[in-house]
């Protein structure tokens, strides 16, 4: 944790990235699920075009479709892996998610209401889990996807203990 005294009092403060990365296996999970998603979408589009005969399927349409899937599988998960970060300190939770649109969320420990742990069927295959921290605001949930299952369990215990230590109804 950076102390205030260490911070150079520059007139242009910037937020640093959260300290921790998610599990590298998350990248593989996102690649595989994006591949499935992409192939299915292109197949449905192609089938629909063939059935209704609305447009003539040309080579360039097929190329664009394949290129889009290639970017969706080859670039997006890597990008997302580089962006997804999280950090939990004594007083706050800080997450960074997204790829094209990057979202940083900061919530004080004193405002945490629930800590959710979820394993989707796909995540379970990779031994991963998602931890969601909610506050009293519907716009304020912090989600950390692609955590190693054991690490996620530890995190939930840690967060629950710390949030419990604070008085009040967190609104």
């Amino acid at each position: 944790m950076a102390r205030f005294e260490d911070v150079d009092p520059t007139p242009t403060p910037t937020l640093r990235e959260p300290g921790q990365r998610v599990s590298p296996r998350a990248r593989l999970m996102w690649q595989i699920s994006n591949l499935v998603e992409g192939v299915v979408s292109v197949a449905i589009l192609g089938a629909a075009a063939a059935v209704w005969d609305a447009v003539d399927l040309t080579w360039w349409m097929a190329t664009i479709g394949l290129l889009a899937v290639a970017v969706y599988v080859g670039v997006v998960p890597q990008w997302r892996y580089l962006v997804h970060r999280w950090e939990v300190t004594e007083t706050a939770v800080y997450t960074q998610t997204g790829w094209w649109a990057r979202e940083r969320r900061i919530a004080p420990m004193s405002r945490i209401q629930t800590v959710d742990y979820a394993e989707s069927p796909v995540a379970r295959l990779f031994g991963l889990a998602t931890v969601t921290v909610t506050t009293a605001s519907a716009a304020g949930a912090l989600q950390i996807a692609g955590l190693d299952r054991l690490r996620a369990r530890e995190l939930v215990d840690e967060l629950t203990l710390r949030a419990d230590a604070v008085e009040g109804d967190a609104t």
Partner: protein
Amino acid sequence: MSEPAPQIDDLTEWQRLDPRMLLVHPVKEITRFLVPLVAVFVAGQASGGGAPWELLGVLFPVALGLMRYLTTSFRIAGGRVELRRGLLDRHVLSTPLDRVRTVDLTASPIHRLLGLTTLRIGTGTIATGEDDELDLDGLPTERARALRADLLHAAPATEVDPDADLTPQPPVLTLDLAWLRYAPLTSSGAVVTAGLLGAAGQVFGATGGIEVDSRTWDLGMPGWTVVALGVVAIVVLVSAVSVLGYLVTNWEFSLTRGPGAWHLRRGLFTTRETSLDESRVAGVTVAEPLGLRLAGGGRLSAIVTGLGAGQAGSSVLVPPAPREVLVRVAGVVLGTDSPAHAPLTGHGPAARRRRWTRAVGTAGVLGAALAVAVLLAGGGWWAVLGLGLPLLAVPVAADRARSLGHALSDGYVVARSGSLARRRDHLDVDDVIGWNLRATWFQRRVGLTSLVATTAGGRQSVTILDVPEPQAVALADATLPHVVRQFLA
């Protein structure tokens, strides 16, 4: 109350609602069953049998009303309000007294005739259906008022100063009939008129309508005059409906400060009294839709912790009224004049440019697509219409760019944005639950970010659009220093 049914294992007794509801329920049920009743009546007339069927049609709603009265009871025991209802499907709703956020007293005309009112308790849960609402329908008005006072004082968040002056204070605001001039500028009148016209159209359609043959149809004046007259007629109709709607909703509107709570009262036929727990008022929003703004008016509502956007009707502090009134009331409710007056910091050239590219650019693409479509369809010169679209977007873009701004004033985060529906939010720093900083690749490229303060009331968040990142971080740091500072680079 009549027939209290004492519980052996609990000293606080379950009690029924006011017996006069026996008169209210059947009337309500009959209006609810009006369509089937008319059908039964018509069928009875047609079959010639008559009386027994019609009698059944009236008896059924009366029986339902009686059943509802007999099966509904409530009590306040062990620090909880409990409401029990239902004959076959028993429901017991129960909520701790300290979760009471708002208390609403609503009285429909028939309730008022009998001296009754409906007491609704707002607890801030996202109610999923009608069955989940804590309504005590109905109580004698005096009793409901006393109960409201008890409920609001029981909530521990309200610390009432025992020495406080309990005599009724003069209202902070009462309705001025001059404000009626703002009514036609709101969108609600147009919506209601459209609904009425639609319904009228349905009736005409069902009854065969008026046959118009355009070849022989002659009003004795040129077509343009007819169109102009039609437009004038619609404008007059919309204005009249808006003014009536404004009067019916906001008749005798008043905002008063009671001990620990704000009391709002309004309504011509159905009166409505809302009490907002003072400590739950997290801020206020000045809404200035374009029409109202051009006439120098706006609307003021409260951001109430625990009340979602769905219950927005409970939090209107000032109906459409002049700007000076909004600003004055905002000052009184927030307890400080400066946030509503605070000059706003602009968001710089990059943010303004983004407003321009987004408004004019989008309209340009749409306009071009429209022009191409018209040309392809052989529309010829009509394609020029597509080019008019970006021109329309120019004033909107300029206005959106000018509206952008934020400030941190006397413990309140102030944010303003929008053009057609401009709003200025004032949110107490203590009610900021967290900060979200959202930036797309385009925004990051020009060093902007959208800063979102999350909160537990109203729309759940206040967005400060396209702030230069250093300003955004500085603002977040100033409001939650112990939290944000550790993450600064």
